[in-house]
């Protein structure tokens, strides 16, 4: 009886997941198919799931008519820099909060954590005023990068991860005449690699997909990231759906490749900090 109900449960779960997978995959499929068709077919009200003809013309138009290579470079640069800064600063802060004794350790951590409760929309305008009006950094890489050098979410993630590392290693290194930064650099960082890899991947993906802040602080086409570039392209060439789909595919492709290449880290990322050990 129990066996039977288990089979039913697995069947229902599989069905629901299958539907959910279809809902997720169809737009992606539509995007990729659309990127190989002319604009009229892409925007058709009577869509064909298997197109009659294939063409790379939308890709040619996308790369010829826009600053696409520059946008891709910008995205890569911004995401790359922010990944490095987030991994370095969040792991340093996480280590300090998890393993070092200093006055105000707990209260500073809780203050930081409480800032996560403030919706980003609330801080957007003051941040904009600070970066654009006061620091006059409009339309620069610094403007895109500065506010996200390290995020509280990442510090929290690292604090949880570092807490699970054995403190006796730190004590052993301290007795072994290692400096405090040496302990972090020579002992903690190497053994925290799985956690750092997860952090790096999640940060890179989040920054690659970031849209609103780069849109706010950039004006010129050459400073746009791929996501912002795609949006502006849409408004300028509102009828060329084929090229838009090609651009969207180009924008999404690195993330899709990244996901399949580093699948195990994505899955690990869901449980980081949740389990001790």
């Amino acid at each position, binding site marked *: 009886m129990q066996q039977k109900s288990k089979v039913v449960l697995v069947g229902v779960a599989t069905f629901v997941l299958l539907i959910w997978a279809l809902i997720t995959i169809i737009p992606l499929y539509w995007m990729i198919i659309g990127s190989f068709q002319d604009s009229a077919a892409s925007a058709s009200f009577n869509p064909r799931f298997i197109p009659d003809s294939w063409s790379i013309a939308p890709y040619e138009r996308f790369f010829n008519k826009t600053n696409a290579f520059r946008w891709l470079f910008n995205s890569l640069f911004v995401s790359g820099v922010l990944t490095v800064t987030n991994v370095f600063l969040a792991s340093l802060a996480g280590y300090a909060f998890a393993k070092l004794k200093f006055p105000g350790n707990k209260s500073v951590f809780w203050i930081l954590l409480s800032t996560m409760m403030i919706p980003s929309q609330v801080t957007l305008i003051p941040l904009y005023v600070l970066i654009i009006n006061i620091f006059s950094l409009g339309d620069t890489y610094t403007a895109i990068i500065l506010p996200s050098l390290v995020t509280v979410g990442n510090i929290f993630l690292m604090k949880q991860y570092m807490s699970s590392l054995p403190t006796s290693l730190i*004590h052993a*290194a*301290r007795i072994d005449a*290692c400096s405090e930064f040496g302990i972090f650099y020579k002992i903690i960082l*190497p053994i925290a690699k799985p956690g750092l890899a997860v952090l790096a991947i999640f940060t890179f993906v989040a920054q690659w997909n970031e849209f609103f802040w780069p849109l706010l602080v950039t004006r010129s086409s050459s400073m746009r990231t791929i996501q912002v570039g795609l949006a502006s392209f849409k408004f300028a060439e509102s009828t060329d759906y084929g090229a838009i789909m090609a651009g969207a595919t180009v924008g999404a492709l690195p993330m899709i490749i990244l996901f399949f290449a580093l699948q195990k880290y994505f899955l690990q990322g869901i449980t980081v900090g949740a389990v001790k050990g």
Partner: protein
Amino acid sequence: MARVVFNNVRKEFVDEKKGTFTAVENSEFVIEDKEFVVFVGPSGCGKTTSLRMIAGLERQTSGDIIIGDRIVNDLHPKDRDIAMVFQDYALYPHMTIRENLSFGLKNLKKSKAEIEQQVKQASSILGLDELLERKPRELSGGQRQRVAVGRAIVRNPQVFLFDEPLSNLDAKLRIQMRVELAELHKRLGATIVYVTHDQVEAMTLGERIVVMSNGIIQQIAPPTELYNKPNNMFVAGFIGSPAMNFMDATIENGKAFVEGAQIALPQAVADGLKSYEGKKIIVGIRPEHLYGEEFAHTVSKEHTMDVTVQVIENLGADNLLYFKVGSRMVTARVHPETIARLGERKRLVIDISKLHFFDPETTQRIALS
């Protein structure tokens, strides 16, 4: 090598919720040069905190700690010339055994030749030669243990600190490592401070044992003295396995009256207990000092007690008989051929030369002059 001195050392921890907690209370002792001293006590008694204060991993709230000729209160662990072996070994998992052994020496900026020589020496003492290029995860528990000891040896420190180093090993390996540690001490002639909650480890390894409870040192003495002359009921109950039996008694006319027995005391003992005449007292006797009457050389009725056996445990070499005296459960460790049946009366002989007497109010040993 060097001696270690605690001068009125106290350690308090401040917890936001629980308030101030005293882990070590005004601790005073001297560990002599080349001595092997074991700290023993139940969990939370302050033994590991004491060790960590010697290492410099915890700062004492008050008092002085001296290693060799120096007061080390404000010295960083690396400057105290100590080495420590941790309970979980604390080997650096991403380094090979060779790198683990040489890590401390590299940090001390020793020459390559010296590092090479020290690592070679330590690995040959501990039989690690074949393992030097392996990672810790490729080693068994016993091998990891040896590497942890090796990491301490290469430093050639003044004092070795061991924090429950055998507690993660299985029973057989623990006995083997215990013997190896004792041999190592002889070979190195080092000052060793060793923390354990296992009284067998303490008795077999320590030249002197520091028994702690609730942050207070209960007694510092060589193993045989702790066993034969425990300062108080805590030490008496903690050292020895099975634990010492305690029985409520009244002293009258040179006899100790306990339930089921009137024990005639030797004259010297009776004289020593004169001030307790007519008063309550606690009598202590170790399980191995109670015998089945068939195995006693001489049986005097005044040195026996009749009991009802409630549980019998057969250990092979001995039998443990459990019975009640008053409200207290008492154990006798008897010869395996002793005749005893569950629920039946049994006459046991008491070795009166091995009796201990404690004041029920202070729980301290009553000194018999």
